[in-house]
């Protein structure tokens, strides 16, 4: 019961504002979720959108597509150069920021702050462990594991381009296998360097964003949008332009990141289809990829209309099941005992090499550190608003300790298992067949990265079936990304409202597909990938501030 009987409006009743579920420290602000929203009607569709955020990000997206299409010859090289400049000049900054995120997460994990529960002291989880973990994994990196699981370990093991991790010796030089000791050292380092890119660091970036968003929404009562994290720093000014800029950047990173991935994913899936069914030159024109984008967008649309539980959650669980089947197949049919015996060795190598690999200064392996690590870190950071927001949305009711364990430690172990199975099998093929192996052909001889997975599978039994499973996995991962991405963009552009009209989500799904298709036809995908990676630098600074706000926010919670 409210103490104020005549209060039936939406004006926050400060004295009577209850805590969510059990003790939590609600932030006392006059701002009301959606107060800056406008509700125009376009034909039969009514909208509920945040004024500057929706309008500015919508216009920027349209303008960017037009400019990129109109000046593709100039935009591509310009953005490519910007990406190279950022990753080579600020590599130390990205590496250092990555280390800080890991340290902050591990610090919170072992500190008494770990006892705080998202959604108040007595909150109960919205989702089971399986449903929750499937969703956060599918959103976080599912697709990347498909693309890089074979490519990256095989590449580091045998790269002839001098960009091997820490500048050490590779296992294959000029098409010849080195002596067993060198091969073993190169294999271990290749695995360690790969797990480093898919382990604690990326998940720490996601965890910082996700935990901050969840804390400020579910415990502090602020709108579920990126700007809310910065309330402890900017105070009430966060509802003005500083907040608009942060939210617009987040939309920009999410939409372009998604559209780019959708484009590349369509190319990978169509390359896979061409490989399996022996269709030559399938990727010579964009036609087949555009057809795939239409199919993926159509599936995403169905998923969107089925909602969070009936769409994303269901697809994530189907995907998790399929991924486990594929993983088990590779482990059982591949060199089983080699993989099992290597797993702990790979984890050990990861932990013993993590210090030299993550050291930001005084290194000579520019090709690896700048070309791979700094690029990955910028990429993960630019994806973090999307993944972080999605994880935040489904994580209510978990304690901070449970959250960090499940968002940081368990995914790291799962990534290590995945990389050991796929990368370990690929390296085993390289060691046994050297230049005769399909993996050597696609990764070293002629660099066709999108075929590396299918190359590895082609040397195992039932290749036709497993390759089709691989293609289906790639496609469903993209459907879930497209769906959850639209959910996130819609929430940010609706000022944190999660009950905005569905037509807005439909608009974003279709728009993502259109942007991807237009860019694929216009050839601007590479430029756009460079652009979305470039948002990594400003966001890295934003995220460092978020670490401070997160710790401050956690400290103010009752324990």
């Amino acid at each position: 019961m409210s103490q104020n009987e005549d209060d039936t409006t939406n004006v926050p009743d400060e004295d009577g504002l209850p805590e969510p579920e059990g003790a939590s420290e609600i932030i006392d602000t006059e701002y009301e979720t959606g107060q800056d929203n406008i509700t125009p009607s376009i034909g039969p569709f009514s909208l509920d959108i945040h004024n500057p955020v929706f309008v500015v990000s919508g216009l920027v997206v349209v303008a960017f597509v037009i400019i990129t299409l109109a000046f593709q010859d100039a935009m591509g090289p310009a953005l490519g150069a910007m990406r190279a400049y950022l990753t080579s000049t600020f590599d130390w900054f990205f590496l250092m920021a990555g280390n800080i995120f890991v340290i902050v997460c591990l610090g919170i994990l072992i500190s008494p702050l770990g006892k705080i529960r998202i959604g108040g002291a007595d909150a109960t989880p919205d989702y089971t462990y399986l449903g929750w973990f499937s969703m956060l994994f599918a959103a976080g990196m599912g697709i990347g594991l498909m693309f890089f699981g074979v490519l990256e370990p095989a590449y580091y093991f045998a790269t002839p381009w001098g960009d091997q991790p820490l500048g050490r010796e590779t296992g294959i030089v000029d098409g010849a296998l080195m002596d067993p000791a060198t091969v073993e050292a190169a294999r271990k380092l290749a695995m360690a360097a790969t797990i480093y890119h898919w382990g604690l660091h990326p998940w720490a970036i996601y965890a910082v964003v996700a935990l901050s968003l969840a804390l400020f929404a579910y415990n502090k009562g602020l709108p579920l949008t990126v700007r809310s994290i910065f309330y402890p720093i900017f105070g009430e000014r966060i509802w003005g332009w500083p907040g608009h800029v942060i939210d617009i950047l987040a939309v920009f990173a999410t939409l372009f990141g998604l559209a780019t991935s959708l484009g590349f994913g369509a190319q990978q899936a169509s390359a896979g289809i061409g490989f399996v069914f022996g269709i030559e030159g399938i990727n010579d024109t964009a036609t087949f990829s555009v057809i795939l984008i239409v199919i993926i967008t159509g599936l995403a649309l169905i998923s969107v209309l089925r909602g969070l539980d009936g769409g994303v959650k269901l697809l994530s669980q189907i995907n998790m099941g399929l991924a486990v089947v594929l993983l088990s197949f590779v482990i059982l049919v591949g060199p089983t005992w080699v993989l099992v015996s290597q797993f702990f060795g790979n984890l050990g190598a990861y932990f013993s090499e993590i210090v030299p690999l993550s050291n930001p200064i005084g290194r000579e392996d520019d090709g690896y550190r700048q070309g791979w690590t700094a690029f990955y870190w910028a990429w993960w950071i630019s994806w973090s608003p999307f993944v972080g927001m999605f994880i935040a949305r489904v994580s209510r009711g978990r304690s901070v300790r449970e959250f960090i364990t499940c968002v940081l430690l368990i995914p790291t172990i799962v990534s290590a298992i995945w990389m050991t199975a796929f990368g370990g099998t690929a390296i085993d093929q390289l060691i046994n067949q050297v230049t005769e192996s399909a993996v050597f052909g696609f990764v070293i001889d002629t660099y066709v990265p999108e075929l590396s997975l299918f190359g590895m599978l082609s040397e195992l039994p039932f290749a036709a079936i497993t390759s089709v499973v691989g293609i289906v996995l790639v496609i469903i991962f993209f459907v879930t990304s497209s769906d959850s991405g639209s959910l996130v963009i819609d929430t940010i552009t609706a000022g944190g409202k999660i009950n905005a009209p569905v037509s807005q989500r439909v608009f974003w799904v279709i728009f993502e597909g259109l942007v991807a298709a237009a860019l694929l036809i216009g050839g601007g995908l590479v430029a756009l990938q460079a652009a979305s990676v470039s948002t990594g630098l400003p966001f890295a600074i934003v995220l460092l501030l978020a670490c401070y706000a997160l710790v401050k926010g956690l400290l103010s919670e009752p324990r």
Partner: protein
Amino acid sequence: MYRKIIFPVDLTHIDQLTRALQTATDLARHYGAELCFVGVTSAAPGAAARNPQEYQTRLQTFADEQGAAHGLETSCKACVSHDPSIDTDKTLLSAITELGGDLVIMQTHVPNMLDYVWSGHGGTIAAHSDVSVFLVR
């Protein structure tokens, strides 16, 4: 004739519910029925409330006021949904069954072209509920 009338309510748009609310209170008084207000909210902060507990408090206040103003027996139920944009209808339908309502009265919009492919909350509830539904345009 009716013992319990369910009235789905959107706390952010109370000003637009006038006609439906009038219909509901009149019918409730006529049949001596209980009027039960049902709202769907999310755990994340929204325009109506910053958390489900605050939402429940506001809904209760609203129900009490209506009860006092019209001399009716009122009650309320706040349902928490993971994804209210999509799941509102499903949540309302199960709340109607769970609460044992025998008439639903709700405000809806005048149908337009979109309703041929994608009907509003009122249309969906009317199409799927076991009990009588009174849609007020």
